[in-house]
């Protein structure tokens, strides 16, 4: 590390200096880190612990058991058929809701990326003046009450909502359209709308980082606009796009507010089950097992996805 000619003593003081610096750094970090450990790591550990206990009425049995997890995967002979898919689980609700949540969240994520990418492109390449103003305009909705943004869709899609009453006032329909609200489609639309503003920024950042001379070079060498986009812009913006997709997909699988407000009985998701097990059915251990299983499934899906697209390679590609 140190130059050969340097006296040993000097190098030693420098090492001591560095260690002191590190200690000061860790000291500064420690309050925030302590809060994170006490309020995230420990609670999640407690949740894991609880998932191995059992609830008998009001009594919590603390002897460790895997019964809660066994309950989630126990099989029976008669399948419960859901949308033509037979589920051979004795308690099929969690599995059905999990698959449904994954499909709904995935649809919302695809919609978000499809909506956000052109907007990020617009911000990065078309806006020349008032860029800051545009970015603030896009970010405001994300910071304003999630609850209210979801509720707004209830007003839009409801039986007596804006679309139905508007179409009726215009004389286009006689009866309100009932298929608008309280179904998985309404949840997907609402989720997409709620999260789209959050997805624009990471995509925008990776588009903005692209060296403009690469684009000029491609044009000079005879690429058409479309070809240039497909060969340079799209691959180079992949890291931000993947990050945006994950930032939307991971939290939406467990969303609670949206399915509760606009999902109705048909649009419930796994988050609703967790809430019900904890607060209504008084079976926190089973709820904990469902929550932990959900997190593990999400983690596995994300890991497989990142491996499949070769994220490490994409990220290290030169900008």
């Amino acid at each position, binding site marked *: 590390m140190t130059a050969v000619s340097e006296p040993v003593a000097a190098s030693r003081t420098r090492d001591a200096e560095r260690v002191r610096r*590190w200690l000061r750094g*860790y000291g*500064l970090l420690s309050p925030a880190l302590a*809060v994170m450990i006490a309020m995230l790591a420990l609670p999640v550990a407690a949740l894991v612990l609880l998932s191995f206990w059992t609830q008998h009425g009001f009594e919590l049995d603390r002897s460790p058991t895997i019964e809660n997890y066994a309950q989630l995967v126990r099989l029976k002979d008669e399948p419960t058929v859901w949308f033509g898919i037979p589920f051979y689980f004795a308690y099929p609700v969690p599995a059905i809701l999990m698959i449904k949540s994954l499909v709904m969240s995935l649809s919302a994520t695809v919609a978000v990326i499809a909506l956000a990418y052109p907007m990020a492109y617009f911000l990065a390449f078309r806006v020349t003046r008032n860029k800051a103003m545009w970015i603030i305009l896009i970010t405001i909705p994300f910071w304003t*009450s999630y609850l209210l943004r979801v509720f707004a869709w209830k007003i839009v899609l409801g039986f007596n909502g*804006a679309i139905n*009453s508007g179409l009726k*006032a215009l004389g286009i329909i006689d009866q309100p359209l009932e298929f608008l609200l309280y179904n998985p489609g309404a949840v997907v639309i609402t989720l997409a709308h709620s999260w789209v503003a959050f997805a624009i920024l990471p995509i925008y950042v990776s588009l903005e980082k692209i060296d403009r001379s690469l684009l000029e070079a491609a044009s000079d060498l005879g690429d058409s606009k479309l070809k240039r986009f497909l060969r340079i812009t799209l691959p180079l913006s992949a890291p931000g796009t993947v990050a945006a997709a994950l930032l939307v997909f991971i939290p939406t699988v467990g969303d609670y507010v949206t399915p509760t407000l606009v999902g109705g009985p048909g649009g419930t998701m796994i988050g609703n089950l967790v809430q019900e097990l*904890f607060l209504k059915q008084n079976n926190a251990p089973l709820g904990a097992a469902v929550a932990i299983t959900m997190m593990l499934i999400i983690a596995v899906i994300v890991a497989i996805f990142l491996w499949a697209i070769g994220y490490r390679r994409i990220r290290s590609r030169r900008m």
Partner: protein
Amino acid sequence: MLRRLDAVWIYAILFVIFLYGPVLLMPVFALNDGTFATFPLKGFTLKNFSSMAANTSMILALQNSLKIAISVAILATALAIPASLALTRFRLPGGGPIQSFMMLPLVIPSIVIAVALLVIILKIFGIQLSLWTVAAGHVLICLPFCMSVLMARLEGFDPSLEEASRDLGCTAWQTFWRLTFPLAVPGVISSLLMGFIISFDEFVIAFFLTGTENTLPVYLFSQLRFPNKLPGVLALGSLILVGSAVLVIAAEVIRKRGAPSNNPGDY
């Protein structure tokens, strides 16, 4: 202008309409003289807003939310300042993983954070649920946001300024208060405002961790089930939306002021 109105521009305008349209219906119907949120509009009224002043349970919930949001903003920022300094200035071994760990609340569904905190608070420690437990949960989810704002700001100015200050004989403490902190003030204010908004608008964690007292979003949620409460909900919702928007704009404008940066990530 016409020359620039191509497909991308048209898309951008439609996008902004899509983004704001549903939300803007709320103030429109709140000012409408009718019991349902329906077209055609019946007439202009302010009675939905004026009747709010008499709603004591709402005002109580508002006070609770303000108390929580202000404490959370201050606490989360106070924790985030030293942590951001450590992560941007000290090149600590293990700094990367620590930073990722700090950002975890961003990607964990809030219902999982809520039930995990519920378990440790009730089943392990046996603490009563109250506004304090809500505030604790909010500090956790605000920390990553406050830290990203502050770290972007701290990375935005030249570290050689701090080296110069130390070479000129200032202690680390003096350097911080005379140089680093004043330069970081826009980031600090913006972090305070972000923490305030996130906590003020947060619903799921407050819903799980509150005791007998309501925060404003929890109160609002309890009202959503009753169709006859709709006009009041619309009026309250409109005010919250306007208030949040004003604070977000303030946070963003302050963050950008005097910080011309070449870093595209630092918007």
